[in-house]
């Protein structure tokens, strides 16, 4: 087995922290079967050519790439190596994010890199060819969420010839945008811009819309997902209702309208907006008093009091989640959102809309008065450690937009905006903001610490940060620029489809910069405000991108699936069925006589091999022995190391992020990548201690967020057992730990590493 080691300087990124020539020399002294090279940029064409040339020239059996994180350029190297030998005959050594950038001392960093590379070499010795198989794909796409992102993506996809199933939780598609008055920075009427899109979606024969529906289960594999959908009863026959409105005009019920955010009234039978899609009425049964009037007056006979919930299944090739955002609720806080004259941004939109409850007049809810002093409160629940740490991005602009529009129509109204910083990055945004100040809108640079109700009016406690003086601002109406949070639907989808979310609870893409709409699961995508707060134009950009990504994925009748899956050794298998019971993907077939892995269903998490009593089932990549060998290699160079098994979805990303942030991590910490924390066997946990390791830890996804559903929970059990074993052996169970973190939580990884070092020094 001849192995080529290619070490990258990455300019100064690695070369500045690690002695690359010393490393190269060292690995050239190990024997004939290991040959090392270095170059300035391995990912460049020159670097790739070097790898390809050397594979051919020296008949290399496997390659170790010592460079940046595989999450960064992994696919470049895989493709490059795949041109010459099997693309799985390479192993990486992450000496940039997880070594150079976290270790200030060059000698320490060089020694750490040595151990990381040695681990990779040892693992590479066990690499085998991995083939692929082709499986058919369904050309249908599921779009969850009918907001502006979902609508735009659906039209893009149908233009490309795909069939779209659109699932919408509400009674109409359109999302939040159709509830707005106007949109920045053009001051376009939101409905005028979106109603043609609504109409196109409604008329499109290739789009099936399921309103009042929710996805409750997703099974299957990329290219063939089986989706279970529940459609809640509308109590109106969609085939018969013509939305004439006769029922609504006779319904005796009047309740505050959810669609109007409690600013207007609705009947128990209603349609939320005139352009609703589908254009059908709906009975909201909680407010309905069953008087029967709608049924009596409906000439179409469309009222269906005994309508029931319906469950059905569809098959799709790809899934797009665009379930969007909602506003943070600041009721019963120092913002006093419960006060009638403290409005949310949404509520203001609803009273500003010309078709809204006040026909667009700004009248306050306590008594219908036209406010004399209207104050916008920025960063309400954003950039605040008590609520959301992040900036909600759109509020500076949406408040300015509303302030400008109101000022233009009511020149005598005093309008103030209390802000921390005005963030107006975007084409035409700063000019938009400048105009607002010219119009006489009063911008007060100061955070509002409290809103004190004073009868119907309000007193805002503000610190003017220009003069450093606390001031009281009296207002007769306040509009909070509530921060954005993931909608309930977004949170639900995170658990139904198992998409990892960040610390902010928005769903996380594979890579924020270079793969912003891809998720860790092939064939499953996210877009729009499901991913982060963003303005409408960015949602449209996302929608176009995601439609293109989906079309690329589904363009051929078949897709190739690499067989990195589990394999069963029939000679050792005792047919106990434990693996089949534990597999959440039903990927293990059995006739009772034999057990076999269904390659297209297997997600290669490796949880099965942990539960197998005879080690009969194992992963092709990340096999039991490969991991052990990698640990061997690391401990050969650094017997005092602390081994950290990091899961691909979260722990490893967090470790990379710690590096990107140039956090200081003790060089004894050595990361071993595993597909899932559930793949780590008890042997993996205990073995390093026999070899002298100081400690072992697992970095797994947050509970409930495991990409493979329950891997981190299985790991939790195994860790608990192994801790007991270590106690009995006198090593000390405290030296083995499991840490849960999301892929975005670099600081949590740093803390975990620090904690491990402390424990091991005790």
């Amino acid at each position, binding site marked *: 087995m001849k192995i080529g080691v290619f070490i990258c300087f990455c300019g100064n990124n690695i070369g500045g922290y690690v002695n690359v020539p010393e490393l190269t020399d060292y690995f050239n002294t190990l024997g004939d079967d290991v040959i090392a090279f270095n170059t300035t940029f391995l990912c460049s064409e020159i670097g790739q050519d070097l790898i390809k040339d050397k594979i051919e020239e020296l008949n290399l059996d496997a390659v170790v790439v010592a460079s940046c994180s595989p999450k960064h350029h992994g696919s470049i190297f895989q493709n490059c190596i795949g041109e010459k030998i099997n693309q799985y005959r390479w192993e990486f050594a992450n000496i940039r994010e997880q070594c150079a950038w976290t270790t200030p001392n060059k000698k320490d960093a060089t020694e750490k890199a040595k151990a990381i590379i040695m681990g990779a070499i040892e693992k590479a010795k066990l690499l085998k060819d991995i083939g692929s198989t082709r499986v058919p794909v369904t050309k249908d796409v599921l779009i969850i969420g009918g907001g502006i992102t979902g609508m735009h993506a659906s039209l893009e996809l149908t233009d490309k010839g795909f069939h779209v199933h659109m699932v919408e939780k509400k009674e109409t598609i359109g999302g939040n945008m159709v509830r707005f008055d106007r949109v920045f920075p053009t001051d376009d009427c939101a409905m005028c811009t979106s109603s043609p899109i609504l109409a196109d979606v409604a008329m499109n024969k290739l789009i099936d819309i399921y309103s009042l529906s929710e996805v409750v289960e997703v099974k299957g594999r990329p290219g063939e997902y089986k989706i279970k959908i529940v459609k809640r009863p509308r109590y109106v026959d969609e085939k018969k209702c013509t939305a004439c409105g006769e029922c609504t005009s006779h319904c*005796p019920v009047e309740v505050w309208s959810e669609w109007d955010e409690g600013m*207007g009234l609705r009947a128990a039978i209603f349609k939320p907006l005139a352009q609703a899609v589908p254009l059908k009425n709906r009975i909201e049964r909680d407010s309905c008093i*069953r*008087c029967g009037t709608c049924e009596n007056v409906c000439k179409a006979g469309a009222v269906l009091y005994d309508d029931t919930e319906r469950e059905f299944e569809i098959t799709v090739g790809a899934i797009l989640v665009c379930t969007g955002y909602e506003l943070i609720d600041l009721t019963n806080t120092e913002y006093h959102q419960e006060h009638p004259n403290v409005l949310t941004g949404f509520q203001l939109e609803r009273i500003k809309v010309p078709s809204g409850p006040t*026909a667009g007049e700004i009248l306050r809810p306590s*008594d*219908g*008065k036209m406010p004399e002093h209207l104050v916008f409160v920025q960063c309400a629940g954003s950039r605040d450690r008590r609520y959301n740490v992040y900036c909600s991005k759109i509020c500076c602009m949406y408040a300015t937009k509303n302030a400008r529009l109101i000022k233009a129509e009511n020149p005598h109204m005093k309008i103030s905006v209390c802000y921390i910083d005005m963030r107006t990055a975007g084409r035409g945004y700063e000019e938009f903001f400048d105009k607002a100040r010219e119009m006489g809108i009063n911008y007060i640079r100061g955070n509002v610490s409290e809103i004190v109700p004073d009868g*119907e009016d309000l007193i805002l406690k503000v610190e003017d940060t220009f003069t450093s003086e606390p001031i009281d601002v009296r207002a007769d109406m306040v509009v909070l620029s509530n921060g954005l949070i993931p909608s309930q639907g977004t949170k639900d989808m995170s658990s139904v489809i198992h998409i990892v979310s960040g610390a902010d609870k928005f769903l996380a893409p594979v890579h924020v910069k270079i793969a912003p709409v891809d998720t860790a699961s092939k064939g499953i995508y996210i877009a729009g405000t499901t991913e982060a707060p963003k303005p409408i134009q960015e949602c449209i950009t996302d929608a176009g991108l995601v439609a293109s990504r989906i079309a690329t994925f589904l363009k051929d009748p078949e897709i190739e699936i690499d067989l990195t899956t589990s394999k069963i050794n029939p000679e050792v298998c005792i047919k106990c069925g434990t693996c089949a019971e534990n597999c959440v993907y039903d990927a293990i077939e059995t006739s009772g006589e034999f057990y076999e892995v269904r390659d297209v269903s297997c997600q290669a998490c490796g949880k099965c091999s942990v539960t197998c009593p005879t080690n009969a089932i194992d992963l092709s990549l990340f096999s039991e022995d490969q991991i052990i060998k990698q640990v061997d290699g690391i401990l050969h160079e650094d017997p005092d190391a602390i081994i950290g098994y990091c899961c691909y979805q979260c722990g490893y990303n967090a470790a990379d992020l710690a590096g990107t942030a140039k956090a200081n991590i003790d060089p004894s910490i050595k990361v071993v990548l595993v597909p899932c924390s559930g793949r780590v066997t008890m042997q993996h946990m205990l073995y390093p201690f026999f070899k002298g390791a100081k400690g072992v830890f697992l970095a797994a996804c947050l509970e409930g967020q495991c990409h493979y559903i329950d891997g981190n929970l299985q790991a939790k059990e195994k860790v608990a057992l192994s801790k007991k074993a270590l106690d009995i052996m006198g090593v000390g169970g405290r030296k083995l730990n499991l840490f849960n973190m999301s892929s975005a939580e670099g600081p949590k990884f740093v803390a975990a590493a620090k904690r491990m070092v402390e424990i091991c020094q005790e």
Partner: protein
Amino acid sequence: MAESTSFEPKIVAFTCNWCSYAGADLAGTSRVQYAPNMRIIRVMCSGRVEPTFILEALQNGADGVCVLGCHFGDCHYISGNYEAARRMELLKKLFKDIGMDDRRIMIERVSASEGDRFGSVVNAFTEQIRELGPLPEDYQESLSLMRGALEGERLRIVLGSTKRAFEEGEIEEERYNTTMHDIALEEIERVKMMKALTENGPQTVPEWAEYVGVPKMRIWRHVLALTQKNVIEVVGEKEHYMQYQRRGV
């Protein structure tokens, strides 16, 4: 109280054809003696009596009104007496809400064989009204407000749908009654708001609140509803408030 002793109340009784009217006849044939203050109006069923009939009587000189029907379970039309009871319950609630004595109206059950009972029911009610004295003059305004509300479609729909709504088991009776009561109060306030428009011209929310005697926030809800139903419209501005008038006036 010399005046009350000389006062002879005028009482109107709506009696159902099948039980109470026959009960009154039996009282007569049995020569049961009872107070002469009551004037009987025969209806086929106590369920036929609309709340507005009762108000009409009070508006035209009656000092008390009673509805007499069959005992529960005995209604010739199966459930008319239940309907009547429900309406009387609402009407009594509204009397209290609006500040009128609800003892001026009553519902009782008298069967065809209860001649004696007919006499005693009439005597007791007559005595009660006699004690209450003549219908106060200031009741007239409240009665006309209430009548305006009860003649409106919204309240008529709710009143007329009780049978379907909860006798068919689709909604709890208590919830329906609460909703019906809320709607009635809303409608009474809205009639009063309309009256203010007629009497004083365009109104703002604070002006209305003072006239109707409810909080401004409640008036604002009415304004939203009446605007949505195209009943009123904005006609001007006054001291930071919109002025509203009947649509098309």
